[in-house]
């Protein structure tokens, strides 16, 4: 079953590539069908198991479902997939945004449709692999594999940036950033494996085995930094963020949706799943730094977002700001904040996807992403402006929507751990209001550039948007099912830290 979650997108991608010879409709339908199938499978898995019951003590992993076969026995590598509350939520998000990514490029992508869907689906397949892999080699395998189709997606179907920078440059920048940080990850993984090998004489890449590795504090710190930097680049944490705005602004809509909605989450997932459980002590040590980096990201992202002219660049910077909340939430090691992280990841995935889809729709109509050339759109089209307004409100953290729940929980949790961090992070909410409103102001209100009416929203777009809105409202009003699903996992990670630390952090 778990293998199919990975295979469905891969096979679907190959089919839709080959289906191009039957016209440009066929690849779209095949891609859509396989994404819906994937979504149905993950939904089924979510409903099938009771994730909250898995009551774990620290440092243990209990999987809802597991699959393991030998892969490369020479190095103790196995094809090991496993599912728990955290992975299923991430998979749900992946599959759902996968459906949206296919639907939102229905009319946007006209060239080389088959190859486009091959790349799109392979990203999703690799991401599903990342969320399921419980063998470090396998994890790294998928981690790197998702870069290649993303690279093609940006460089072949991307747009020229407002400032004229080429899409190939943006794609190459993205690839080199993530690939070199990936090498660091590989080094750290192999370093960890070797430390384990020295102690036990067993060469293994398995997650559960490696978790029991004992190491000296300095070694733990070095290896942890390898993991941390690799994930920080993907996250992106502020000094490593410069690939993100470029990649986003040049990517096609589906690419942006995948990038903001899913790819950034793989980094947060990696921190929660690997960096912290492998190195609880070193993580504890680096936590203050990580939280301050998060704060820097929140404030910096918000300020830079405010001054952007390119609407997609702007949303990209707001992503940096929102992911800052995720970072401080993770490294507060507080149960409440970590639950907030999960909600925030889902809500940000959905709201950023919504904003990117909106800007894609605006681009299809206006042929520009420059905010200076927008203005007064409310009077020129129907349907899209109120929805844009909704997502802007979600992004500023309006109570009643998912982002609010996430940010609120994170702030409450962090407040108990480090009041100053929480104080500064809260400014993100204010700044969020500023950039969200300026976005609305500059694009929708003000004098119209021309009086020519634009096409309103059509049924396909409306369905997409409504489904996003529904989920955001649901997350905002009744996040309990999500919280229940992830509680056990987050609890075990939190306990790992509390059990390893000598002085309780919450003073």
């Amino acid at each position, binding site marked *: 079953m778990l293998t199919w979650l990975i295979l469905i997108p891969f096979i679907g991608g190959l089919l839709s590539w080959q289906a191009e010879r039957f016209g440009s409709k066929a690849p779209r339908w095949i891609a859509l069908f396989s994404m819906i199938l994937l979504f149905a499978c993950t939904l089924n898995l979510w409903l099938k198991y009771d994730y909250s019951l898995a009551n774990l003590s620290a440092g243990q992993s209990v999987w809802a479902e597991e699959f393991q076969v030998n*892969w*490369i*026995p*020479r*190095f103790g590598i196995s094809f090991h997939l496993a599912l728990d509350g955290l992975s299923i939520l991430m998979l749900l998000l992946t599959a759902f945004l996968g459906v949206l990514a296919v639907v939102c490029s229905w009319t946007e992508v006209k060239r*080389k449709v088959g*190859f486009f869907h091959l790349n799109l689906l392979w990203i999703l397949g690799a991401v599903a692999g990342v969320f399921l892999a419980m063998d470090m*080699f396998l994890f*790294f*395998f*998928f981690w*790197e*594999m998702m*870069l*290649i189709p993303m*690279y*093609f997606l940006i*460089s*072949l179907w991307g747009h020229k940036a407002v400032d004229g920078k080429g899409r*190939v440059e943006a*794609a*190459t920048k993205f*690839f*080199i950033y993530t*690939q*070199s940080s990936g*090498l*660091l990850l*590989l*080094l750290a993984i*192999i*370093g960890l494996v*070797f430390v384990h*090998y020295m102690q036990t004489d067993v060469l293994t890449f398995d997650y559960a085995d490696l978790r029991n590795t004992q190491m000296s504090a300095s070694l733990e710190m070095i290896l942890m930094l390898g993991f941390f930097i690799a994930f920080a680049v993907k996250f992106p944490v502020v000094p490593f963020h410069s690939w993100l705005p470029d990649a986003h602004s040049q990517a096609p809509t589906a690419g942006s949706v995948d990038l903001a909605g899913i790819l950034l989450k793989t980094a947060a997932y990696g921190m929660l799943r690997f960096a912290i459980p492998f190195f609880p002590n070193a993580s504890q040590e680096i936590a203050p730094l990580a939280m301050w980096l998060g704060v820097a990201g929140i404030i910096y992202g918000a300020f830079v977002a405010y001054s952007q002219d390119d609407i997609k660049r702007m949303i990209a910077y707001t992503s940096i700001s929102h992911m800052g909340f995720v970072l401080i939430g993770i490294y507060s090691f507080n149960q409440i904040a970590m639950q907030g992280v999960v909600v925030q990841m889902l809500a940000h995935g959905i709201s950023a996807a919504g904003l990117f889809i909106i800007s894609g729709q605006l681009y299809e109509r206006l042929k520009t992403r420059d905010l200076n050339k927008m203005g007064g759109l409310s009077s020129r089209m129907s349907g899209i402006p109120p929805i844009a307004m909704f997502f802007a409100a979600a992004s500023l953290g309006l109570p009643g929507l998912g982002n609010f729940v996430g940010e609120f929980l994170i702030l409450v949790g962090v407040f108990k751990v480090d009041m100053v961090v929480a104080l500064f992070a809260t400014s993100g909410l204010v700044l969020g209001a500023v950039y969200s409103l300026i976005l609305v102001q500059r694009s929708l209100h003000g004098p119209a550039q021309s009086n020519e009416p634009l096409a309103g929203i059509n049924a396909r777009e409306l369905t997409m948007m409504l489904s996003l809105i529904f989920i955001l409202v649901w997350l905002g009003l009744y996040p309990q099912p999500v919280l229940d699903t992830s509680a056990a996992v987050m609890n075990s990670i939190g306990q790992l830290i509390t059990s390893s630390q000598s002085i309780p952090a919450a003073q």
Partner: protein
Amino acid sequence: MTFTLENLQALLPLLITCATTIFVMLAIAIKRNHWWNATVTVIGLNIALLSSYYALKVIPQTVTPLFVVDGFSLFFSGLILIAALGATTLTNAYIESFKRNREEIYLLITIATAGGIVLSFSHHMASLFIGLEMMSVALYGMVAYTYDRARSLEAAIKYLVLSATASAIMLFGIALIYAQIGSLAFSEIGAGITQEPSLLIVVGGMMLLIGLFFKLSLAPFHLWTPDVYEGAPAPVGAFLATAAKVAVFAVLVRFAILESNSVLASTPFVITLIVVACISMMVGNLLALKQNNIKRMLGYSSIAHFGYLLLLVLVGGQKFGIEGFAVYLTIYVITSLAAFGVVTLMSQADGKRDADMLSDYRGLFWRRPYLASIFTLSLFSLAGIPLTAGFIGKFYVVTAAVGAGFWGWIGLIFVVLGSSIGIFFYLRTIISLFLAKKHMHRFDAEINWGQRTGGIMVLGAAAFILVIGIIPNPLMFIAQLTQLLWVAQ
């Protein structure tokens, strides 16, 4: 000195390759027909490859003081034969349109292959030198084969002059070593190299290494590589990048690591080797950055790859060193064959030049999707991206280096830097395959390239890259053959 039947059985791959040369010569004399002469070559090389299986039964075996046949030498002679077969099939597709005598190139290929096998069997300075020259002299002819093109001729002369100089330096080095130790056998030389070797040994050993580094085009002895790669006809380039390098590297590893263990303990040599490895990684990747010529780019990338490989052998130790070396080299050979294969299939011997400019490949994916996919795959493999075999090779390098302490970590810094830089130019090449073309294309593969011998070989290589990238176990298993070593008394 008596020959036993086992001795001859062990030498079978070499003997059959030499016999093939004679048969091809006779075949050309009987009837000058391209297809028939090429077939004789391919059959001969295939029999030589199969005979490795029989040779495997009697190993390890010393044949005269010159040759040793063990798992290590058989693995690499097999690899050389595979590379030669690949180059032969590519030549067959390429040389068809050549206006002059087409058949003699097969003679040169078999001679060079025999030289390569001699190298992989040798554990004596005399056989090392004979093998090296046998291979190099044939290579000069191969590089100059399309001598109507000025570039081809220029490359051959450049290669001839520089290579002869390197051989001379090496010979002098061997003489110095002999003056000190009084023997040419690897094992006895190895015993003479101690932790603090005498000046004569250091100078002689360095000169010997310089000669080998030159043939391997390791920086800073790489200057000939891009020019020769560019000038040589594409299938010859494939041979040069694969079979020729494998043979020299195999003998270097046998000399420096297997038979004189203390080379790794004697400081001047270790430092030299590590420094050369690190410089090669940087130089290869940096110089490839701005190349618009695919063959030059592949030349520079091979410099970097041999840097990784040298590091792997040096730091690999007992557990991973030799096995990793075998795995990495095999992967590199097959990947290079695929990459050069695509260039070959795009080119014709009667053209003014080969299809080697980046612009010739613009938009190839939309004209020849499978060919471009193979090229993409092989470039990704050279860059070491997962899902391709190249990643397994890189994995060995990193694994070996992480466990190797100080020198390993120094090397790793260069590996990380080098491959980060490397990605840039591999991507640059790859993306141009997919971009829409701006002008008329001058070069194209024949529409039925997949059904021709060269095409089938390239498809096979691509399948290998993909399969080994996902299930590397069989290759690892075969590579462990190299552990079956003849032990010096």
